[in-house]
């Protein structure tokens, strides 16, 4: 051994010293940001540009994509999303050698082309928790470019309601000899609270415009269909009530928004207030406002915030996690952990489901990634604490023989045909082809069939836990697949047999009259109704205001 254990620490000292010269100090003028980045980033560095599907370090990202490719090169990007045009610009400029990420959303098409053209190597596509995990194992960033709302002169940061991924990124980077550079909207004398201490931050720059935030979780109730109302009724009566689901996570979409809006009406009429949906891992969905106001909800922990919900959330500190300063604190890593281990149910929609119940949102020509859904939509095999819902699901699970154990409920809710008559049920997922064309080790499956407990469609609920064989499972899925090719090819007698055993349940089997599934059941029928329900506290983004 050579006895030198501090090479990385000295490298950081060198970078900081170069940065102080290039940036003119700890608080860097925005005009010097490109010089700073060129001074501190070394070829081959692992770099994290903070951003998720909500807030984005957009100024730093744009600045990085404006650096000299001769100086800033061979980067290994390790970050939650590749969602901004500047992320992909950086790749197109030839400054990136490799990427490890979770989600690419709006850039999915451009990314697929770059991969097919051999312009970029993908290490792996992760879930958020996997990537955060690897930050602490083998993908620790050497440089993290993060976003905060405010900084003080010392470099303490206030990340406020949109704290999101910042703590996980900074913790890994700052304590393993990495460099943390923050863009902030404002530099103030005194912060409302300190979310990231100055000692973990090396440089701060005030961005010319506030960091971008996407109102990703806002769903206009006006667009919820009667079919979604029907499926929400089935979810509430056929699953939430039967298993007594109190701790849960909802995926994003109109299907789950419909459930949220039926809690104060339909679920309340069924006498379920206080019995279901009390504790949540969920972003501040505007469509949850009526349920909160009706006293349905006891607690909500958030991955991130939601544009326009800040004043409402701040006024409901009994429900949300709010700091002493009065604003919410979100934390994606903790909320993902909560969603995986502390919730009894996940429900979400998808684009395609195959005959084994595997589901995917991957479609041809797009590499969209996973985000957080696979961690929410998976049985937590490491879970040990019991709850009535978890035990009931476990007792139904035909695979649980011998040693008794519980089971998370993972529910997929889909209309059998999407828009333009695209079938939600297919013999073979597009994911196979996407995986092959992108050279991935595995088809990009969002939720594996053996994790799915129930599938809800307008035709009914299939309980996959109770299926004893792969054939039963296939017929149960066909039995709710409606008029898709998959549904039409069902063995009618087998499906009726499954229905007798309660594996396939129609609305009438649940005591639900589809004719009563009208939009009148929604506790709010428009964004304006949500504003009203919030007592005027919810301040929706302009694009959702149509009055």
């Amino acid at each position, binding site marked *: 051994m050579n006895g030198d254990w501090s090479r990385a620490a000295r490298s950081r000292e060198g970078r900081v010293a170069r940065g102080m010269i290039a940036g003119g100090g700890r608080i860097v003028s925005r005009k010097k940001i490109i010089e700073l980045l060129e001074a501190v980033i070394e070829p081959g560095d692992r770099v994290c540009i903070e951003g998720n599907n909500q807030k984005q370090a957009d100024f730093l990202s744009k600045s990085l994509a404006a650096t000299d490719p001769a100086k800033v090169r061979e980067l290994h990007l390790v970050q939650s999303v590749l969602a901004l045009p500047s992320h992909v610009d950086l790749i197109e400029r030839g400054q990136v050698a490799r990427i490890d990420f979770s989600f690419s959303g709006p850039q999915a098409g451009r990314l697929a082309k770059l991969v097919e053209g051999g312009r970029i190597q993908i290490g792996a596509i992760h879930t958020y928790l996997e990537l955060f995990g690897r930050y602490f194992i083998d993908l620790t960033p050497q440089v993290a470019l993060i976003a905060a709302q405010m900084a003080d002169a010392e470099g303490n940061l206030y990340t406020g309601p949109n704290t999101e991924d910042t703590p996980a990124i900074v913790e890994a980077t700052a304590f393993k000899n990495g460099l943390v550079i923050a863009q902030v909207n404002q530099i103030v004398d005194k912060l409302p609270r300190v979310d990231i201490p100055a000692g973990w931050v090396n440089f701060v720059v005030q961005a010319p415009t506030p960091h971008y935030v996407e109102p990703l979780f806002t769903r206009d109730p006006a667009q919820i*269909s*009667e*079919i979604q109302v*029907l499926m929400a009724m089935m979810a509430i009566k056929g699953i939430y009530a039967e298993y007594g689901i109190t701790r849960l996570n909802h995926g994003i979409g109109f299907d789950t928004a419909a459930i949220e809006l039926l809690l104060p009406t339909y679920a309340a009429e069924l006498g379920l207030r206080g019995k279901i949906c009390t504790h949540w891992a969920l972003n501040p969905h505007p469509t949850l406002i009526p349920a909160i106001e009706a006293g349905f909800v006891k607690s909500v922990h958030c991955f991130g915030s939601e544009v326009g919900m800040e004043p409402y959330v701040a006024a409901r500190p009994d429900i949300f996690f709010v700091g002493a300063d009065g604003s919410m604190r979100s934390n994606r890593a903790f909320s993902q952990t909560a969603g995986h281990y502390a919730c009894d149910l996940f429900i979400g929609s998808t684009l395609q489901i195959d005959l084994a119940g595997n589901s995917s949102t991957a479609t041809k020509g797009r590499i969209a990634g996973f985000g957080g859904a696979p961690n929410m939509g998976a049985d937590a095999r490491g879970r040990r604490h019991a709850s009535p819902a978890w035990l009931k699901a476990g007792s139904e699970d035909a695979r649980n023989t011998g040693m008794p154990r519980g089971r998370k409920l993972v529910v997929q809710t889909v*209309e*059998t*045909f*999407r*828009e*333009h*008559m695209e079938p939600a049920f297919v013999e073979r997922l597009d994911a196979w082809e996407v995986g092959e064309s992108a050279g991935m080790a595995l088809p990009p499956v969002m939720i594996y069939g053996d994790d799915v407990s129930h599938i809800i*469609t*307008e*035709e009914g609920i299939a309980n996959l836990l109770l299926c004893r064989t792969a054939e039963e499972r296939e017929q149960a899925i066909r039995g709710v697949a*409606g*008029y898709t090719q998959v549904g*039409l090819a069902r063995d009618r007698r087998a499906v009726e047999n499954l229905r007798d055993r309660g594996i396939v349940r129609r609305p009438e089997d649940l005591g639900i009259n*589809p*004719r009563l*599934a009208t939009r009148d059941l929604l506790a709010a029928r428009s964004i304006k109704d949500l504003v009203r329900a919030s007592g005027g506290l919810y301040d929706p983004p302009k694009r959702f205001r149509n009055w």
Partner: protein
Amino acid sequence: MESLTFEYRGGVPIESPRIPVIAGVVGSGNLEILLEAEGPADHCTIVVVTAAAGFGAIWQAVMDDFVARHKPGGVRLSINDVGATPAVVSLRLEQAWDAFQGGSA
């Protein structure tokens, strides 16, 4: 535009007289159904005009199920479809049938 006609026999004659009913609206992703007493007592005629061509087999399956469920006789359904999914079609059919029977749609 595509026009489809489905003819069924062996229905149970409706108790007459019945007032024609309309369910749904003509709008994107939706459809309008006019249900009226007409034709021979055990016949059911369904005429579909749809904006989405090429889904005749699915319409057939949806209508077969509806007719098997309710055995309508002496009934004519006229459907104006603007790209409704089978889920919406089935729901509207049930609503129309319910209203036709004098129930609440």
